[in-house]
């Protein structure tokens, strides 16, 4: 079978692989959002801006301090995660007793501020970031050339996603965290510092966004706009996967990347919108999401 629906099979496999690569970014980003929402009930609209900050930290590290990609993978999430901790301590914690839509509005406002500040400082044409030397080049897979860097992105995302899932669902730390969100007073009574756990968890979710940003820097231009349109797509992914479900966002992230990739082949103009169509359908049939549990 040389062709499927008029597209050469080889080309189709190539598109699927590319879809998987995009899916990796969706997965890591939606993982961060899912962690924050699932465990803390906070809708973190700032996630896109924090992803952008991760990319910028990597850029500044390289330009100003000559610190390369591999260090940036470590430093950027820590730095941006720290700002996340500050945001949580100073602002978000005041909103917990209110309707969690206020949290959404606050983080939306923060996203606007961050985007505006970076745009003012760096302009919007975008800044280049080199692919690290160790990952240059491409491998000939027969049906396409797969750049080594993109292969690395898939592997790294899978590792990060699966280890996070493992920690949250299968370890003691994770179960303490889950218990703390269901019944904070009781867990606090056991002597566990619940507010601190919440703060650190938010910081961790933010750090995941920054990590995605560093990984994205060599692929897309580093620009203040990079998080803005991505954020609503990632939200759609989280909603489809199930807002509290970690595994849901991982699977949906990769899955949607593939679906988007296929759409680009058959009806490319719609590739920006297909995710929302799916989201609307899922919300009508199973509002808790594909893997979610009704809250």
């Amino acid at each position, binding site marked *: 079978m040389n062709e499927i629906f008029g597209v050469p099979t080889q080309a189709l496999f190539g598109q699927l692989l590319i879809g998987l690569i995009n899916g990796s970014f969706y997965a890591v980003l939606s993982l961060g959002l899912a962690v924050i929402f699932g465990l803390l*009930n906070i*809708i973190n609209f700032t996630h896109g801006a924090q992803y952008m900050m991760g990319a910028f930290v990597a850029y500044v590290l390289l330009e100003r301090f000559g610190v390369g990609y591999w260090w940036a993978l470590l430093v950027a999430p820590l730095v941006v995660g720290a700002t996340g901790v500050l945001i949580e301590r100073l*602002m978000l914690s*005041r*909103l*917990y*007793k*209110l*309707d*969690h*839509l*206020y949290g*959404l*509005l*606050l983080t*939306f*406002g*923060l*996203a*606007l*501020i*961050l*985007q*505006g*500040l970076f*745009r*003012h400082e760096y302009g919007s044409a975008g800044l280049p970031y080199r692919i690290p030397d160790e990952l240059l080049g491409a491998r000939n897979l027969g049906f396409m050339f797969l750049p080594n860097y993109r292969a690395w992105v898939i592997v790294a995302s899978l590792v990060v996603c699966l280890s996070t899932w493992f920690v949250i669902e299968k370890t003691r730390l994770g179960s303490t965290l889950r218990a703390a*969100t269901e019944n904070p007073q009781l867990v606090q009574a056991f002597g566990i510092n619940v507010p601190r756990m919440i703060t650190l968890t938010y910081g961790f979710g933010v750090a995941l966004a920054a990590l995605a940003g560093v990984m994205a820097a060599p692929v897309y231009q580093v620009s203040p706009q990079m998080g803005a349109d991505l954020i*609503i797509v990632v*939200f*759609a992914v989280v*909603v489809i996967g199930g*807002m509290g479900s970690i595994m849901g966002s991982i699977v949906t992230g990769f899955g949607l990347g593939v679906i988007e990739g296929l759409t680009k082949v058959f009806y490319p*103009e*719609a590739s*920006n*919108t297909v995710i*929302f*169509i799916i*989201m*609307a359908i899922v*919300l*009508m049939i199973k*509002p808790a999401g594909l893997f979610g549990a009704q*809250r």
Partner: protein
Amino acid sequence: MADAQELAIGAPARAGSLRHQRIALAVMIAFFALAPALIYPVFLMKVMCFALFACAFNLLVGYGGLLSFGHAMFLGAAGYVSAHAAKVWGFPPELAILAGTAAATLLGALSGLIAIRRQGIYFAMITLALAQMVFFFSVQAPFTGGEDGIQAVPRGRLFGLLDLSRPSSMYALVFAIFVGGFLLISRIIHSPFGQVLKAIRENEQRALSLGYDTDRYKLLAFILSAALSGLAGATKALVFQLASLTDVHWTMSGEVVLMCLVGGLGTVFGPVVGAFVIVAMANYLAQLGAWVTVVQGAVFVVCVLTFRRGVIGELGHWLKKPF
């Protein structure tokens, strides 16, 4: 974490004399009637259109407790239909505006049927998804002109008599539509229907147990809100003689939330004040470029943290009367 401690979005209105509200209404009408002598009329017309949009949105979020993230689809779709009707079909302005409003109402009914079945964040997400689909349609459909939008929309003659290309005539029409729309919303809020809506916002289970078909009330509120947003959008298309993608983009949905938040969710006059503030800011800060985004973000943050009641809400709180 869902428990009775969560404060629902929107300020609870208190019973009380409505005399101060009538005074406020008179002040507002006088302001918009007299201000064009001092302030640039096109700016004021923009404020009035957005104020109507914000009031319509507030009906849903402030009084119905339903935060929609896709209201731009009503503003924008009505604008496109109205512009197309005036320019291509040659409708006179009153029919063009009616056509736009009708389109928004229909869209409201369809999307409402889909969205109302869910609550809270899921409701918001569905409205966002539907708005994105309307956006996509607006980009693709040839009649909307894509990035260019529908330009050079003729204002025409109102009822075949009043030439709307004269700024004063157009202003009078917009003023009439704004005041009419505002009074209608005000009536809805203070009617029995409005009371039931508030009850549903406060405690839906209780309202259900009292025998009210809450879904029907919510749907009706949604459709009314969509229709009046459409009215604002259709009028705006004639004022600026332009219908563009900005009006269907999701950031427009965010702006109307901001307007209501700044003005005061769940207050009668809040959205008008909020619209005035936000439109003025966008206008006069336009020279500052990227700082406009920062300022808007900062306003959001400050309002959510410390100024949750909004301008009118704080005023009402201070005077101990609802506005």
